C-alpha cells in the first residue's frame, strides 16, 4: 500500500481516538466530581472505584450539608456564594467602566505616548502576582481595607484591566472608522459617538470581556486567601472550598458538593456564551 494510503487511514483512525480521548480526559474529572457529591460517604468507602452507581443509592445530603448555614451545622456556602457573586459582578462593572474608554483611546485615538502605554499594559503581565501581593497587603491594611470585599474588588480590577483593554482593543480596531466619522458628521461629539455607535457594534467583545472578567474574579484564589482569610463570613466560594478541603473533619462527599457548587455557575455562564468566548479570545490570532 502506498505511503499516502497508509497515512490517510492511520490518521482517520487516530483522529477519532484523539477526539474520544480528549473528551474523556476533560469530562471524566467533572463527572467524577458530580458523582462523588451525590453518593453517601459509606458507600464511597465501600466501593471507591465505581463509576456508575445505582439510582437508589444516590443522595443529596451532601448539598444540604454544604449549603446550610454554619449555626445549623452546615458549611454555610450560601453566604460565600453571595460574597463571590457580589465581588465578581462588581469586578465586571468596574473593569468595563475603566477599560472601555482606555481601549477606545488605545485603538482609535492618536496621542502622545500611545506606543509606550500599549507596551506598559503588556509588560504588567511579566510580573508574578505574588510581587503585587506584598505591598497591596500592606497598603490595604493601612487603609483598613484588608478584610473587606471592596479591597478585593480593587485588586481584581488591577489584574483584569490590562487583559480587557487588550481584548477590547483588538475588536475595536476591526470597526471601521468611517462609521464614527459618519456619526460625527451627523452631529455627535465623541462621547455620544462612543455611546451610540461604537459600543453597540462592540457588544460581542464587551460581553466576552465581561464573561472573562467574571470568570477570573470568581475563580481567583491567592488574593482571596491573603486578604479575607481572617473573617469566615467574608470568604469567597473559592477560598471557602480551599479552607474546608485543607482540614480533615469535612467528608469528601460534602467537599465535592462544595466543588460542584463552586464550579456550576461559571460552567453554566460559559456554555451559554461559548461561541462568543471562542471568537473573542482569539480575534487577534488569525491573519489569514
Amino acid at each position, binding site marked *: 500500500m502506498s505511503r499516502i494510503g497508509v497515512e490517510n487511514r492511520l490518521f482517520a483512525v487516530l*483522529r477519532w481516538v484523539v477526539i474520544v480521548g480528549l473528551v474523556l480526559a476533560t469530562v471524566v474529572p467533572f463527572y*467524577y466530581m458530580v458523582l462523588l457529591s451525590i453518593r453517601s460517604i459509606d458507600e464511597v468507602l465501600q466501593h*471507591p472505584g465505581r463509576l456508575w452507581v445505582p439510582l437508589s443509592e444516590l443522595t443529596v445530603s451532601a448539598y444540604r450539608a454544604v449549603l446550610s448555614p454554619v449555626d445549623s451545622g452546615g458549611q454555610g456556602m450560601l453566604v460565600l456564594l453571595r460574597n463571590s457573586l457580589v465581588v465578581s459582578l462588581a469586578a465586571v462593572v468596574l473593569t468595563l467602566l475603566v477599560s472601555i*474608554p*482606555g481601549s477606545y483611546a488605545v485603538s482609535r485615538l492618536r496621542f502622545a505616548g500611545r506606543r509606550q502605554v500599549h507596551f506598559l499594559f503588556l509588560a504588567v503581565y511579566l510580573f508574578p502576582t505574588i510581587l503585587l501581593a*506584598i505591598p497591596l497587603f500592606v497598603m490595604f491594611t493601612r487603609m483598613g481595607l484588608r478584610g473587606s470585599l471592596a479591597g478585593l474588588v480593587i485588586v481584581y480590577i488591577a489584574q483584569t484591566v490590562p487583559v480587557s483593554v487588550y481584548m477590547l482593543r483588538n475588536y475595536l480596531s476591526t470597526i471601521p472608522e468611517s462609521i464614527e466619522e459618519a456619526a460625527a458628521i451627523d452631529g455627535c461629539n465623541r462621547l455620544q459617538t462612543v455611546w451610540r455607535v461604537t459600543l453597540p457594534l462592540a457588544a460581542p467583545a464587551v460581553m466576552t470581556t465581561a464573561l472573562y472578567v467574571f470568570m477570573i474574579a470568581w475563580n481567583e484564589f491567592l488574593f482571596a486567601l491573603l486578604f479575607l482569610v481572617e473573617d469566615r463570613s467574608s470568604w469567597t466560594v473559592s477560598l471557602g472550598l480551599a479552607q474546608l478541603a485543607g482540614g480533615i473533619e469535612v467528608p469528601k462527599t460534602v467537599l465535592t458538593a462544595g466543588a460542584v457548587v463552586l*464550579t456550576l455557575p461559571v460552567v453554566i455562564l460559559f456554555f451559554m456564551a461559548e461561541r462568543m468566548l471562542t471568537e473573542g479570545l482569539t480575534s487577534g490570532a*488569525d491573519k*489569514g
Partner: protein
Amino acid sequence: MRPPPETATPPNKRITLRKRESRAGLVFLSPTLLVVIVVVILPILWTILLAFQDIKLVDIQDAGLFGRYTLGNFASVFSSPGFWSSLVTTLIYTVGSTGLSIGVGTVAALALRRPFRGRSLVRGTMLLPYVAPVVAVTFVWQVMLNPQFGIINQWGTRLLGWDEPIAFLTQRATDVSVLGMEVEIPVALLTVIAFEGWRYFPFAFLFLLARLQAVPGTLEEAALVDGATPTQRFRHVLLPQLGPVLALLVVLRFIMTFNKFDDVFLLTGGSAGTDVVSVRVYEYLTSRFDVGAASAQALVLAVVLVVFVGIYLRFLAPSADKES
C-alpha cells in the same frame, strides 16, 4: 453672508481635529492609567524597594519609604539552601507544562479542524479544564489521585496490576528500571506538570484552531494535488502557518506558568519536590514574615523571567514581535 451654523460647536474653532483627538485620547485613557498605576505599578516599585530593605511584616506598618537599604536580602536568598534547586524545579515545571499544554493543544486543534457531528459540543467540553475554578479542579485531582480511595489508584491496583497505590502528589521520586538501568522519576513534579498540561491545553487549542481555520484551503489542496501525505502537509504547509501563533503561545504560557502560584500550592503545597519559587515567596511571607526576603525572591523571579523571555524573543523567535 452668515457662515452655516455649526452642528457640533467646539469652544475654540482653532483647535485642530488632531489636537482634539489627542486630548480626548488622554482623557479617555486616564481612568485606566490611574487604576493601573496605583494598583499595579506603584506596588511593584514598592516591592522593589522592599527587596533592598531589612524589614519584617511588623515593621512595615510604621516604616516609610526610606529605611535602611541593604543587599542583605539578596545575599540570604542566594545562599539559602533550597533556592537554586527551587529555581531549577521552576524551570523544569515551566518548560514541561508549556511543552505539554501546547503539544496537546496542537493535537486537539488538528483533530477538531474538520467538521463532524457534535463538533461544537466537543469544542465546548475542551474548554472545561480552563474555565473551571482552580480550587475545584485541584481538589478533584487530589481526590482522584488519592492513594487510599482515589479511582486512579483503584483502577491501577485492580485492573492494571500495580503492586501498590502510587502517591502521585506526595511522593518525591521513585526508581523505575528502564532497560536494566535504574532511573529516578520525580513523581510529584511530573503529576503537577500533567495537571498543568490538562488545565491549559484549551488555551493553546483555541488559538491554534482559530489560526488553522484561517489557513486558505488552496494551500493544502495544492499540496494534495502534488501528492503530499498528511504528515508532509503538516510539516510543510500547516506548521509554517502556525509558526507565529506557536511562538506567541510559548511566550505567553512560559510567562504565566513561571509566575503561577495557585495550582502548585493547592495540589501539593510545594512539598515533595515541587517547590517552585512563587510558593517559596509565599512561605517566606506567611511563615517567616520576612517581607524583605520575600520581595527579594519575587524580584529575582521576575528578573529571571525577563531574561528568559528576552533571550527567546531575541534569538529563537523574532517573528513573535510582529505578532503583537
